[in-house]
């Protein structure tokens, strides 16, 4: 198995400038995180808001530079702070954002949204761009007639499909999914998760799946990393982490997740009666 993504000791600090009355301070958002992801596998990053998981996602997507540490994609070291990025390197990683209502430009048609990555990163002629957009529309379960519509004409689940299609336009190796289903209803969530699983099988994609929903993580992940205040407190295969959580925060997280099985309901009703 080849390693697609390797992170070594990634650190990200944000400097908050001081003013007349406030001292400048430094926020350590990510404090030295290391991991590797193999081709065709899914790494899930779990944690609560403010733990640095989205910051890490932005670093992996080459949007923000890391303060220190090495990021290797397909064995090649990449440092966007140096500014020597080629379009080929950019193409390897794409991202799907959390809120499909905010991540699609309301004034662009779906066709323009889909072809824009090709316009920016390649010199593909217009008719090929259009063909590729049509193919991907069908692949994510939409139809060709949707090409000329605007985002407001679609439901949340359909918009997330469009965002996924856009991310796939450049044939990336790695897809960073930043809470892709947390804004969706349960039934739509199942459809989008199935779509992601199908695409992974078909295109041999590698996923970094950022989420705070453990039931989704258990379903989709091969490996799980739990983050807490910028540190990776737990990292291992899904079965290891779920069967035997080591860190106290992971245990808290498991205990806090609501259970929807019949035995738990029975136990709760019994407790209530006793009280």
């Amino acid at each position, binding site marked *: 198995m080849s390693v697609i993504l390797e992170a070594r000791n990634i650190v990200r600090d944000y400097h908050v400038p001081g003013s007349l009355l406030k001292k400048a301070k430094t926020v350590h958002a990510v404090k030295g995180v290391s991991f590797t992801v193999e081709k065709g596998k899914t790494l899930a990053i779990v944690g609560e808001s403010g733990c640095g998981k989205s910051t890490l996602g932005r670093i992996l997507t080459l949007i923000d530079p890391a303060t220190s540490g090495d990021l290797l994609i397909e064995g090649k070291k990449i440092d966007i702070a140096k500014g020597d990025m080629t379009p080929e390197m950019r193409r390897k990683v794409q991202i799907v954002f959390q809120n499909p209502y905010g991540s699609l430009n309301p004034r662009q048609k779906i066709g323009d949204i889909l072809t824009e990555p090709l316009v920016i990163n390649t010199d593909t002629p217009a008719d090929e761009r259009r063909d590729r957009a049509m193919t991907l529309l069908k692949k994510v379960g939409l139809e060709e007639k949707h090409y000329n519509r605007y985002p407001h004409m679609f439901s949340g689940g359909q918009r997330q499909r469009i965002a996924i299609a856009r991310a796939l336009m450049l044939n990336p190796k790695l897809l960073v999914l930043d809470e892709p289903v947390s804004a969706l209803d349960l*039934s739509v969530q*199942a459809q989008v998760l199935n779509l992601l699983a199908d695409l992974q099988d078909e295109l041999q994609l590698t996923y970094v799946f950022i989420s705070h929903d453990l*039931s989704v993580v258990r379903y989709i992940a091969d490996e799980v990393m739990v983050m807490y205040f910028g540190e990776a407190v737990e990292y291992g295969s899904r079965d290891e982490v779920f069967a035997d959580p080591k860190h106290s925060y992971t245990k808290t997280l498991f205990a806090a997740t609501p259970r*929807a*099985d019949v035995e738990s309901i029975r136990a709760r009703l019994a407790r209530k009666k006793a009280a």
Partner: protein
Amino acid sequence: MALLEIENLVVEFETASGPFRAVNGVSMKVHEGEVLAIVGESGSGKSVSMLAAMGLLPWTAKVTADKLTFNGRDLLSMPASERRKIIGKDIAMIFQEPVASLNPCFTVGFQIEEVLRVHLGLDKAARRKRAIELFEAVGIPDPADRLGSYPHQMSGGQCQRVMIAIAIACNPKLLIADEPTTALDVTIQKQILDLLMKLQADHGMGLIMITHNMGVVAETADRVVVQYKGRKMEEADVLTLFENPKSNYTRALLAALPDNATGDRLPTISELFVDDQVEGAAR
């Protein structure tokens, strides 16, 4: 006697393409000291039916019902001034987005004291004392200091606690919680749910939990109403619903939970449930 009784509630909105029925003949009852969960996807009319009961819908909405009573008093025929005395005092609501539903221009202390002033007519010192008590009850640290904070200075979980404190300020008989934990992390969600259940048990309130999260339902409810496209699909006590769901829609909803996944694929609701009017009309 039931606390809140709704029979055949219909809510229609006038749109450019004719009237749209958001709620289509829903009936339910909530008793004192009972936790009722209303489950459904977005657009199932679960929030709208509760807003209609509170009288909080805009004038463009057409609300009709065979019966809509609180404590035996008809809410529909009651003059607005009478209704305002009940809403916020005996029936209180916790809204979905805690940060957005607090007024950013006033301190949280002012907003909680406003309720105490309008509904209970307490004087300044008594209001402050009660506000501190309430903040302690919902677990906000340094309550006296936090009264002077603005909503933007608090986290999402803290704001939700303030919303709960405002809602329980007048010891309501019925509390309606509209997706109280949707915007929150699981650890905070657990704290807020525990808090709501404790308050409900302590005061013997009726509690309506509106949610789309089956886990939240399993952890809190006594009885469950399942809604789909403005219609009531099923009503059952919580154990029966999870063990032996009657309606096809409920079965599909439970199967779509990632916890229940067997194999590689999740069953989706559209695969398992065919939306025909007959199924809905049967109940």
